[in-house]
């Protein structure tokens, strides 16, 4: 047995602490992390993939989907409590979980361990990607809440940059995998799917969901990049929300800026 005095001196091998039975908040936080991954973050991800695949049907269809979403009642509250806060919690606590894991896939290169590792790193990738994506699409440049009709152009314009296109492809694949496999993890951890055979099936189902989302996502990206002609920027989109007329009228009403007439 190692005496406490000895272990204090040898910091390299003080060993893993025993269970702190019935104490702490990590159970609540960890399960909340697991839950937020499915609801609302996962649900929002599904909605987001479906909405973005409207791009397959063209510019007007995509923009009208954006109009529907940006025009929802209580939009700001839905955004804050349905998206931003749960996403921030899932992301930040997820980074903490990643940081505490001691990856050993080199020593134990088994399938489950690979999935464990991939789940951690796709999580990091998605967190970085989504932070950028939200900043660019929601807060930077033309404001889509004011100008829903700029939506297709804004995405197309972003994806016209090869680096951005690469980032989006990686982001879509990482997010799809993280969510699909995450559904299996949720089912396993919450005791919904417990047996070995059932877990194999659930794991396959989760991976199938990932692949389906990757396909939908890549087709959507293709629709922006290559399926439809390049959209032109409308100068009316530069008007801030207060001064601009409702988006559908903005092209009809003469503007004080000469260039808006020139087009």
């Amino acid at each position: 047995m190692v005496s406490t005095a000895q272990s204090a001196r040898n910091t390299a091998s003080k060993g893993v602490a025993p269970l702190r039975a019935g104490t702490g908040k990590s159970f609540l936080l960890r399960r909340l992390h697991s839950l937020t991954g499915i609801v609302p973050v996962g649900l929002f991800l599904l909605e987001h993939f479906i909405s973005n695949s409207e791009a397959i049907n063209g510019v007007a269809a995509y923009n009208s989907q954006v109009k529907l979403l940006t025009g929802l009642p209580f939009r700001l509250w839905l955004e804050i409590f349905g998206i931003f806060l749960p996403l921030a919690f899932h992301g930040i606590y997820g980074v903490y979980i990643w940081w505490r894991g001691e990856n050993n896939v080199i020593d134990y290169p088994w399938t489950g361990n690979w999935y464990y590792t991939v789940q951690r790193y796709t999580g990091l990738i998605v967190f970085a990607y989504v932070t950028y994506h939200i900043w660019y699409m929601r807060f930077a440049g033309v404001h889509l809440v004011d100008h829903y009709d700029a939506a297709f152009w804004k995405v197309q314009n972003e994806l016209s940059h090869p680096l951005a296109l690469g980032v989006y492809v990686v982001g879509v694949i990482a997010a799809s995998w993280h969510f699909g496999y995450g559904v299996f993890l949720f089912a396993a951890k919450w005791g919904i799917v417990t047996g070995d055979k059932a877990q194999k099936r659930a794991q396959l189902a989760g991976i199938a969901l990932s692949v389906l989302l990757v396909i939908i996502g890549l087709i959507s990206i293709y629709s922006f990049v290559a399926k439809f002609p390049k959209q032109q920027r409308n100068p009316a989109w530069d008007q801030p929300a207060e001064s601009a007329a409702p988006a559908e009228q903005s092209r009809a009403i003469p503007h004080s800026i000469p260039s808006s007439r020139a087009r």
Partner: protein
Amino acid sequence: MANKSVLFKVKRQATPTSEPYWEEFELAWRPGLNVISLFMDIAENPVTREGKPTTPINYDSNCLEEVCGSCAMLINGKARMACSALVDNLEQPLTIEPFSKFPVIRDLQVDRSVLFENLKAIKAWIPIDGTYALGEGPRVLPQVQEQAYELSTCMSCCCCMEACPQFNESTGFVGAATIAQARLFNMHPTGKVLKDERLKALMGDGGIQECAYAQNCVEICPKDIPLTKSISDVGGDVMKKAILDFFRT
């Protein structure tokens, strides 16, 4: 080949606080060698490959038939029992190290008392002590016996904990073995009386929530205990309790 030899290196450490070092050994091959028999040969004639005299290698062992769980160590980087590690099935030179996540006492002997502490924390026993005879206990159905049997073969070797990426000083995760024992004792009609306390213990810091399903435990377990099933099973019980507690306390 008449003069075949076995080449292996051992990570040694004289005291819990001293620096570890490697020593190489070479022994004559003979049929049926396992890692423990290599150590026995070294103890008989403790010299390194270079012919330098050394001390016999220190290690835990007892049954030498993979039921006591004492001789677990890292052999070629993987946690396993030294007694069932046959030299002929291993790539040479063998690399033999003590477990990396447990404090070293000397050489390959490590302090695995954390598992004992964890088992105490979840009350891994059936409470039958009292002041008078309670008579016969309730019958255990044969189907339950079958499930309980495989869980009861756990020999506390700690391989599942060593191989788990979540079992580390940062998380202080309880590990698969303890969770499987919680399932075993919760399954027993008399042991069930402590079920709530066990589940509550497993909700503490370092509890069942730290499992992230890398599933190394079930792959590495020398006794093939259904550890991931146990974790999911107990995970479900814990969730049920958490939700009921939320609405009813």
